[in-house]
C-alpha cells in the first residue's frame, strides 16, 4: 500500500484532510484487491432489488479494502441533500436517517465537487456528520457515485485506526463506485416504479366495490385482474336500483397508472350517481360522456351498462365503445350482437342507444374488459370466441368467473388489466320457505322476494300488489311481536297451485293487541286483499295463513 503523504495534497485540500488522487503512482500488490474487485462486475448484482444490492456492495467493498466502515449515501433531488441509505460498521447513519448538505463537509464536498476525498485524520478535518467521530473513525476515503454524468450519491469507507488510503485503495473504491452506480440507479428507478405500481394497485382496489350488493333475484360475481406490470383503469360495479332493478357496469379507462385508476374512480362514481337518479342505461352513459367531456384533461373510456329487471326478467343494455357481452344459458354461450356507441369522451353529444333482451331464469350475462380477451398478434374475435367457449359450461356466476380466469389468463399474467362481472337471473323456487330476522328493514326484502315469486306463479299486476301488501302487513305484525331483546325471527311459507296462492307467516312472539287505529288497519288490508285470512294466536306465537285465487276478480 502506497504511503502517500498526508501533508502534500495533490489537488485540493479539505480542511486539514487530504485528497488522494495521485493516480500516476503504480498500484502495488494489486492482486487481492483486483481479484475481489472483479466481483463488482458480477452480473448477478444487477438482478438484485435495491436493498439487497446495497447490502451486497457494502460487503464486497468492506472485504476488498479491509475497512471497518462502509457507507452509501444517495442524492435526494427534492431536498438537494445526501441521505444515508446503507451502511456497515456505522449503521447509525441509516437508522438515524442522516441527511447532509451538498457542498459542505466530507461527503457533501465529494458530491458537490465530484472528487474523491481522503481524510487521514478525522479529528483535524471538516466533518459535518458527528456519527463518524462518535464511532471513533480515524481515516476516511470517499468517492462520488455518478451515472452518465449525473451525481447519484457518495460511497465512503473508514478505518478505526489511522490509515493512509493509497492509490490502489482509491482505484478499488472507484471501480466499485463505477460498477455500483448504474446498478443502484437502475434498482432505484425500478423501486420507484414498483412503488407507483403498488400505490396504483392500492388505489385501484380502494376504488372498486368492497362487497357486491345482495339483491333478490340475482346472483352476481366479479373480479378485478391486475396486469403483470402496470395497473390500469378497468372497473365493474353492481348497483341496486328501485322497482326491483339492478344495474351492472363494466368499464375501461384508456391509459395506465395512477392517473387512469383515479379517473376510473371518478367515472364509477359519476355513473353510479346518474343511475340512481333513475336514468336508463343509454341516458346514464350519455351523462357520463358529458361528464368526461367536461374534464379539463383529455380523457377517454369505454363502458357498458346493463339494467336487469328482476320482475320482468329483461335486460336493458347500452354500450359506449365497449366489447359485446356474452349470454350464458344451459344450451351454451353466445356473444350478443350489439352495435356500440362511440367511447365516452370521444365525440361531442355522443348518443348511446339501448337494446332490450330477455334474460331467462338461470341465464347469465357476462361482461368483461378487453384485457381479458386481447392477446398480442391474435385477432380480438378469436379472444372473444375463446371466452364464450370457456363460459359455456358455467352454471353460476362464480363458475363463470373461475372458468374465464382459468382459460384466458396466461400463466405469467395479463398484459393489460381486466375486470369481469357476471349476473345470473336466479331460478325462482316453486315454494318459498324463509326464516327472516324480525326487523323493519326485512319487509322490503320480503316484498321483493314475494313479487318475483308471484309473477313466476302467473300472478297479474293487481294480484302482485294486493298479495304483497297483505303479506307485508302480516310480516309487520310479526316484527312488532318480537320484543324479546334476543335477535328474533319469523317464518314465511308460500305455496301455490291451481291458480291459488297460500302464504303463512309465523312468529314466536306473543300476540299484541293493535295499538291505535293503524294496526287494526293492517288487518283490514289483509282481509280486503285476500280471499281468506286465518289468525291463530297462542302462547307460543302467532300464525297468519292467507289464501287468494289469482286472476281477474
Amino acid at each position, binding site marked *: 500500500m502506497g504511503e502517500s503523504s498526508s501533508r502534500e495534497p495533490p489537488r485540493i485540500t479539505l480542511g486539514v484532510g487530504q485528497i488522494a488522487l495521485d493516480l500516476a503512482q503504480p498500484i502495488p500488490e494489486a492482486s487481492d484487491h483486483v481479484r475481489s474487485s472483479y466481483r463488482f462486475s458480477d452480473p448477478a448484482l444487477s438482478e438484485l432489488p435495491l436493498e439487497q444490492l446495497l447490502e451486497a456492495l457494502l460487503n464486497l467493498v468492506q472485504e476488498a479494502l479491509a475497512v471497518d466502515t462502509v457507507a452509501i449515501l444517495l442524492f435526494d433531488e427534492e431536498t438537494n441533500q445526501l441521505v444515508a441509505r446503507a451502511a456497515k460498521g456505522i449503521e447509525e447513519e441509516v437508522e438515524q436517517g442522516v441527511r447532509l448538505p451538498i457542498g459542505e463537509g466530507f461527503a457533501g464536498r465529494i458530491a458537490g465537487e465530484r472528487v474523491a476525498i481522503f481524510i487521514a485524520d478525522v479529528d483535524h478535518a471538516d466533518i459535518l456528520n458527528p456519527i463518524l467521530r462518535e464511532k471513533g473513525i480515524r481515516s476516511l476515503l470517499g468517492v462520488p457515485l455518478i451515472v452518465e454524468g449525473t451525481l447519484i450519491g457518495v460511497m465512503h469507507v473508514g478505518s478505526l485506526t489511522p490509515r493512509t488510503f493509497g492509490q490502489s485503495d482509491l482505484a478499488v473504491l472507484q471501480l466499485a463506485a463505477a460498477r455500483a452506480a448504474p446498478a443502484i440507479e437502475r434498482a432505484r428507478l425500478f423501486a420507484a416504479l414498483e412503488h407507483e405500481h403498488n400505490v396504483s394497485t392500492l388505489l385501484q382496489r380502494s376504488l372498486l366495490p368492497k362487497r357486491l*350488493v345482495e339483491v333478490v333475484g340475482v346472483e352476481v360475481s366479479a373480479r378485478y385482474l391486475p396486469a403483470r406490470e402496470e395497473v390500469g383503469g378497468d372497473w365493474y360495479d353492481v*348497483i*341496486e*336500483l*328501485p*322497482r326491483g332493478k339492478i344495474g351492472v357496469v363494466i368499464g375501461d379507462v384508456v391509459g395506465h397508472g395512477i392517473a387512469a385508476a383515479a379517473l376510473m374512480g371518478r367515472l364509477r362514481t359519476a355513473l353510479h350517481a346518474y343511475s*340512481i337518479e333513475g336514468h336508463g342505461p343509454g341516458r346514464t352513459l350519455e351523462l357520463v360522456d358529458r361528464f368526461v367531456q367536461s374534464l379539463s384533461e383529455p380523457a377517454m373510456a369505454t363502458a357498458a351498462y346493463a339494467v336487469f329487471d328482476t320482475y320482468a326478467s329483461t335486460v336493458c343494455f347500452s354500450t359506449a365503445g365497449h366489447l359485446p357481452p356474452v349470454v350464458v344459458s344451459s344450451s351454451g354461450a353466445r356473444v350478443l350482437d350489439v352495435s356500440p356507441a362511440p367511447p365516452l369522451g370521444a365525440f361531442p353529444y355522443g348518443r348511446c342507444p339501448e337494446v332490450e333482451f330477455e334474460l331467462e331464469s338461470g341465464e347469465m350475462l357476462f361482461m368483461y374488459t378487453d384485457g381479458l380477451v386481447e392477446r398480442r398478434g391474435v385477432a380480438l374475435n378469436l379472444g372473444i370466441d375463446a371466452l364464450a367457449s370457456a363460459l359455456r359450461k358455467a352454471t353460476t356466476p362464480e363458475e363463470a368467473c373461475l372458468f374465464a380466469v382459468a382459460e384466458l389468463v396466461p400463466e405469467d399474467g395479463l398484459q393489460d388489466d381486466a375486470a369481469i362481472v357476471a349476473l345470473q337471473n336466479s331460478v325462482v323456487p316453486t315454494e318459498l320457505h324463509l326464516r327472516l330476522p324480525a326487523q*323493519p*328493514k326485512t*319487509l*322490503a326484502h320480503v*316484498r321483493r322476494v314475494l313479487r318475483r315469486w308471484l309473477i313466476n306463479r302467473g300472478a297479474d299486476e*293487481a294480484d302482485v*300488489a*294486493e298479495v*304483497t*301488501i297483505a303479506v*307485508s*302487513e302480516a310480516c*309487520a305484525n310479526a*316484527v*312488532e311481536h318480537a320484543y324479546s331483546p334476543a335477535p328474533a325471527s319469523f317464518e314465511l311459507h308460500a305455496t301455490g297451485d291451481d291458480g291459488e296462492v297460500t302464504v303463512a307467516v309465523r312468529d314466536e312472539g306473543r300476540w299484541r293487541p293493535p295499538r*291505535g*287505529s*293503524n*294496526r287494526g*288497519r*293492517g288487518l*283490514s*288490508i289483509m282481509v*280486503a*286483499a285476500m280471499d281468506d285470512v286465518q289468525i291463530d294466536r297462542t302462547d307460543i306465537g302467532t300464525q297468519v295463513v292467507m289464501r287468494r285465487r289469482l286472476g281477474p276478480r
Partner: protein
Amino acid sequence: MSLADVHITLARHALIARLTGEIDMSNAEDMGATVIGATPNEASGVVLDLSDVEYLDSAGIYVVYGMRASLQARGLSLVLVIPAGSPVYDALRLSGVERPGDIAETVDDALRAIDGSSRAPD
C-alpha cells in the same frame, strides 16, 4: 339503495313534498317528520304528492294521519295527490279508511285547493 326519498319544493304559499319509493314501518315516521320539519309556519298548506310512491302500507297511512293532525294544529291544511289506480290509491281502498286528508289527482289541483281554502295576504 334507500327505500324511499323526499323531494321538497315551495310553490306559492304551499310546501310540495313529493315522496318516491316504498314506504313501510321502516321509514314512514322519518318521512313524515322530514315533511313536517320542512314546513314553514307562513305556508298555508302542504301538498303531499304520493303519485310516485310504489308501495304504502298501514304504517304509512298512520303517519299520513299523524301529519294531518300535526299540520291542523298549526292551522295548515294537507292535500294528498293520489291519482286513481296508483299503488297508494289501491292501498287506501284496501284499508277501507276514510280519507286521511283532501285528495287531488294532480299537484296543480292540490295547489288550487290550498289557495282556495286560504285567504292569502297578497
